[in-house]
């Protein structure tokens, strides 16, 4: 285990996000004797069951009853425990939104929520199992911290960091069959601090989750076309790293956001809020699911369909690069 790290996995690049999550959580069980894990008949699907196998006395399967589960998590936290809850994102953020808000966030309780099958990662299941609204919903709950790891290794880092982070945390996990973007776990992950995956001065792509891999791929293609594109992994959507955004605006004046989420209310909206409030104009596009119920299909096909895969990003970057942006000497003073 690397120094300072609380978890380790072998072959991390071959495991899905959820598999790494399950493994990391069961390792954290040794470190945190007050950690209790809860699920609603999705022990195997979310991989939280791995913790249950190791610590059966600290594992509760409530049956298919998400609303009660989140209420119960609040009660367990009030009893002094450290509940970790897992179900599919659609059931956390949509079905049980009120329990998460009122029972957990309103009372600022120490509950960590790790939701899997988020976005359109369970593509063939259709809209009842897609969740392209969770970032919008969770971000609007005061006290909530919202993290969207880019891959399995980052999921491990986020889960470990969440244990030491006060209050409720929502971690969004996909099904995660994509290749990882991080090779090792010690790249300096910290909640609330964006990671610059590539430097660049012509344009910046701000992405989270699977968007990061797509953005890195797009930046490589664009480099071959002579463009210098910055890629920022904005894994924490709330609290968002304002400095990283404003710096990117100042340096590039062209921003594209990429997320596996409705373009309404998620990362793109969060970044837009920061930019507009900074008073600095820039060219700006949000890529994601364009405010519709996503169609059925394999996730990679859907990323392409909605044009937030590498191809789609390249296309949008091309559009922004064709815009005339006035050089403004006094721009610094305007804000």
């Amino acid at each position, binding site marked *: 285990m690397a120094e300072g790290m609380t978890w380790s996995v072998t072959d991390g690049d071959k495991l899905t996000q959820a598999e790494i999550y399950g493994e990391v959580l069961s390792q954290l069980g040794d470190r945190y004797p007050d950690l209790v894990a809860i*699920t*609603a*008949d*999705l*022990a*195997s*699907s979310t991989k939280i*069951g791995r913790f249950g196998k190791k610590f059966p006395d600290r594992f509760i*399967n*409530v*049956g*298919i*009853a998400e*609303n*009660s589960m989140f209420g119960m998590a609040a009660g367990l936290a009030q009893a002094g425990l450290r509940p970790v809850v897992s179900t599919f994102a*659609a*059931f956390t953020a*949509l*079905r049980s939104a009120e329990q998460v808000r009122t029972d957990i966030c309103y009372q600022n309780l120490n509950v960590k929520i790790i939701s899997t099958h988020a976005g359109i990662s369970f*593509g*063939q*299941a*259709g*809209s*009842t*199992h897609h969740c392209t609204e969770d970032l919008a919903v969770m971000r609007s709950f005061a006290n909530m911290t919202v993290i969207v790891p880019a891959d399995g290794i980052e999921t491990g880092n986020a889960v470990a960091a969440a244990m030491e982070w006060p209050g409720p945390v929502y971690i969004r996990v996909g099904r995660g069959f994509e290749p990882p973007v991080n090779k090792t776990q010690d790249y300096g992950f910290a909640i609330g601090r964006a990671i610059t995956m590539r430097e660049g001065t012509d344009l910046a792509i701000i992405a989270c989750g699977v968007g990061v891999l797509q953005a890195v791929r797009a930046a490589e293609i664009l480099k071959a076309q002579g463009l210098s594109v910055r890629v920022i992994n904005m894994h924490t959507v709330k609290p968002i790293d304002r400095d990283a955004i404003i710096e990117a605006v100042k340096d590039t004046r062209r921003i594209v956001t990429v997320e596996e989420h409705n373009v309404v209310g998620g990362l793109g909206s969060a970044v837009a809020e920061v930019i507009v409030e900074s008073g600095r104009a820039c060219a700006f596009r949000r890529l994601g699911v364009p405010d519709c119920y996503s*169609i*059925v*299909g*394999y996730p990679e*096909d*859907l990323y392409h*369909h909605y044009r937030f895969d590498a191809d789609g990003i390249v296309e949008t970057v091309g559009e922004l690069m064709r815009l005339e942006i006035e050089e403004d000497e006094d721009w610094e003073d305007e804000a």
Partner: protein
Amino acid sequence: MPLTREEIRGLTKKAWDIRRAIIETTFTCGGSHIGGSLSQTDVLVALYYRYLNIDPARPGWEDRDRFILSKGHGGIGWASVLGDRGYFDKALLKDFNKTGSPFGMHLDSLKVKGCDASTGSLGHGLAIAVGLAIGARLTGKGFRTYVMMGDGELCEGTIWEAAILAGHRKLDNLTAFVDRNGLMIDGPTEQITTLEPIDEKFKAFGWEALTIDGHDFAQIGEAIEQAQAVRGKPCVIICKTVKGKGVDLMENKAPWHYGGLNSDLRDQALASVDRHYRELLG
């Protein structure tokens, strides 16, 4: 009128076709909720080929009986029935789950003819059915509403909220089925959260409750006719079933809640179903 021997034979043959179709589509689509699709099949066949007052040529006909698959993950089984019943070209099912197909694992009412509610998130269907049943009364329509729930699904609080209201409103135009196969995803229902006594729970909420063998067409038919005749309360039919019914390698096995089939497994599954029906039909 009880089903005749000939009718039962016809329905049995239909169920054979549907089980074969579920296996074939599971093979082509890469994976499906096959266990629960096989357990619900006989009730769906009895409804769609004998009891529902429907016209597949007019899926939007206002007076049609309604059927809601509250355990929406049985979509592949439901679609197999709807296609065979003529709501759409069965050949479309070869694209089940594929990108851009109208058919995902959970059916979409805007895309699939004959599907009256987009289910898949458990615990929603009974409330929708209660709304339809109250709606039929308010609009003076005579249609009946049928809804099929999973047994694991009964954990959801919304089921019991809707059940209380249905009892309170004495909705005798509503019939609910519970596919009592004894399993949810993570294992046997009674090991995770005790559900029994299910019939007494519904009765306490003002329902009539019948318990039958959900693979026996004579019993299914009799129960549906009894439910139609009940006055002054809704009726639930608790169908004792086997998850994976008809496929030896899947029967009563929780991991077959969801799974894919390679060609070997498909052949084994088809052979098992064929054996089962040859015995049954003599």
